[in-house]
């Protein structure tokens, strides 16, 4: 196995040190290390973070391999500095059985670029009527602990209660896509000033907040873990802050795009900005940044949602919802959280690695950067400045809202258990991985 010596890297933004990686672990950390390594990397000015963990991606396989496969999705993840991603259940067939989650898990293992942790559906076929075999998915090789009907809300209060209770038996968590369905019939964008002017159906904040309010109360009532997916409004933040203040076991995530973009962009009617939950207002963006900074929101999750060109190259109403995000996530977090002084690199490691790993109960990820730990690391150059060029993406899809936008920082290298999946900003050859 190739060994690496990383020179002068700032671990979590600290003083420059050398790291020696060998046999899949961090062998040594210190200044002026005098060790032999196969490859030496000059990391002057670069930051070392624990490998990033994404609680929320759509890898599209099985079913929509024209948009993404587990291979291309995990390559994109590696390029973004991720060493573990959770793959949502809305595939075809739906990941609602042990068979499908095992298939996705194995595809991730075979790809080798990033650990893939399948998320199991809460209800059969995401239908919202009947619990899927949650226990069987947990006991499978995939060892599922996170369950979600993402894309759809488990809106039936009794079913949600039962799911929350049931997964306690194996320390599971229900990740809710909070969207009251009746309030969002025909919804096309955030309901507010802009939707009124554009004549597009509104997706009101209350449709998210009312479900979150109900769910935190349910979780407290039955003493279960609740995770709230892609929080998008200032009101949601207030409810989660209140629930956490009560000591309830509630966690939440925010996407990079909700930390940066607002519904003003919809004025172009360009469906690249169509996403669910929708882009909200500048006030919401500020509230989300503040909540991520103070820990009310635990994690950044990309909601990476690849779509083929034809599903975006059309009129707004018929366009698919979602954006790719794996390869730009860390840059957006640098711009919105680090460069603004809201979060230091230690904080970034916490929100993008430690806490999401803990929520997903991933034992091998989100570990401290210290000797003896598995070498799941990302080497990030925060001084880089450049325009986003989707043509260079590893993901199979190009639906990024950041095309041509100047974003700071670039992943220089990613290590998965000591193997470089990305080196010098380039994806490693697949044969070199296995």
């Amino acid at each position, binding site marked *: 196995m190739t060994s690496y010596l990383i020179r002068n890297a700032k671990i979590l933004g600290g003083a420059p040190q050398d790291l020696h990686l060998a046999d899949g672990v961090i062998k040594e950390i210190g200044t002026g290390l005098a060790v032999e390594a196969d490859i030496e990397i000059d990391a002057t000015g670069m930051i070392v973070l624990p490998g990033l963990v994404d609680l929320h991606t759509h890898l599209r396989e099985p079913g929509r391999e024209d948009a993404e496969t587990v291979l291309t999705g995990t390559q994109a993840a590696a390029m973004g500095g991720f060493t573990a991603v959770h793959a949502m259940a809305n595939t075809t067939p739906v990941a609602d059985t042990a068979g499908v989650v095992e298939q996705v898990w194995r595809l991730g293992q075979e790809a080798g670029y990033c650990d893939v942790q399948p998320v199991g559906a809460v209800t059969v076929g995401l239908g919202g009527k009947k619990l899927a075999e949650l226990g069987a998915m947990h006991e499978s090789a995939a060892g599922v602990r996170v369950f979600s009907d993402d894309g759809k809300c488990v809106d039936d209060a009794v079913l949600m209660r039962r799911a929350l209770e049931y997964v306690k038996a194996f320390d599971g968590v229900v990740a809710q896509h909070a969207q009251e369905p009746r309030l969002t019939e025909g919804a096309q964008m955030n309901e507010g000033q*802009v939707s009124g002017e554009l004549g597009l159906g509104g997706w009101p904040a209350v449709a998210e907040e009312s479900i979150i309010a109900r769910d935190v109360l349910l979780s407290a009532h039955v003493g279960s873990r609740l995770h709230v997916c892609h929080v998008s409004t200032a009101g949601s933040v207030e409810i989660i802050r209140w629930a956490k203040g009560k000591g309830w076991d509630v966690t939440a995530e925010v996407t990079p795009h909700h930390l940066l973009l607002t519904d003003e962009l919809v004025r172009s009617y360009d469906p690249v900005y169509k996403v669910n939950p929708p882009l909200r207002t500048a006030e919401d963006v500020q509230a989300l940044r503040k909540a991520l900074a103070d820990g009310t929101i635990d994690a950044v999750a990309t909601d990476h949602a690849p779509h083929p060109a034809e599903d975006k190259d059309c*009129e707004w*109403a018929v366009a698919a919802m979602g954006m790719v995000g794996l390869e730009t996530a860390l840059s957006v977090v640098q711009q919105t959280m680090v460069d603004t002084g809201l979060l230091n690199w230690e904080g970034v490691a916490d929100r993008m690695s430690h806490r999401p790993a803990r929520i997903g109960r991933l034992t091998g990820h989100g570990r401290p950067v210290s000797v003896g730990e598995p070498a799941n690391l990302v080497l990030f150059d925060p001084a880089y400045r450049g325009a986003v060029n989707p043509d260079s993406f590893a993901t199979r899809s190009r639906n990024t809202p950041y095309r041509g936008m100047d974003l700071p920082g670039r992943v220089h290298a990613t290590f998965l258990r000591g193997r470089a999946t990305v080196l010098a900003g380039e994806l490693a050859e697949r044969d070199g991985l296995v």
Partner: protein
Amino acid sequence: MKRHLVSAADLSRDDALLVLDTAEELAQLSGRAVKKLPTLRGRTVVNLFFEDSTRTKTSFEVAEKRLSADVINFSAKGSSVSKGESLKDTALTLQAMGADAVVIRHHASGAPARLAQSDWLHGSVINAGDGTHEHPTQALLDAFTMRRHLNPGSGKDLAGRRVTIVGDILHSRVARSNVHLLTTLGAQVTFVAPPTLLPIGIEQWPCEISYDLDSVLPKTDALMMLRVQRERMNAAFFPTEREYSRRYGLDGVRMAQLPEHAIVMHPGPMVRGMEITAEVADSPRCTVVEQVANGVSVRMAVLYLLLGGAVFADGPTEPARTDSVETAQ
């Protein structure tokens, strides 16, 4: 003027007055036996209709034919569009056929904006109504009609005139285009509707809001009644048709509260007995039929100005064909 007409907000005050003044000159044609101008001879205008609309489509078609354009009607029904062809491929097809202008009606808000911003099509895009977004030529014909009654004359605007628009503002593209254009022309706009039929955020629009029609009537110079579609009934926007009609419908008693000079307008099609009684619809104060005639003049002006046609003041040079559409509503 810009190359496209997607939103009434695209029009500056000067643009808007230019359209109205041009329409006024073109309107003189309709009184002549020969109504046709050679202005757009050899230019191709496509009417791309993804939504049924006999009235607007006919109006555009008459306008195009009076300017001697080659007119192609591309209806979504019975074409490849109904077989799943994308807007992009349809646009590329029209581009390949050499369309100089595309008049588009679409059920999706923003579809004309997409066409105008894309590189799928090089001709002018004219919005003939998109979803619940805008209908700028309707606003132009409404402003044209108001100006004739309330402040006639070339170069005149609607400064200080009070326009009240009543009905389903939430779903109305006519209301959205009118609030842009009328405020550009200096008018004061008041929307009257039950709160359920007003969009969130309307407080920020450049208009007044009222839930009470009777209190607004004496302060109104032009009253525009909007149609309330029957399907809104099932979505609890208001309890019953009769209650809506009692609170927001216009009957003879209410009409009597208007100042004597005030006009009653309706973009059509009217639902008699719902938002307007037959007594009002048939009264001399009601400009509905006049609006239809003005629609042709205004659309001629828009096509003429966007396509940069030759000087039109020379008068007709070729006989008009006796198209039956000219008598359509």
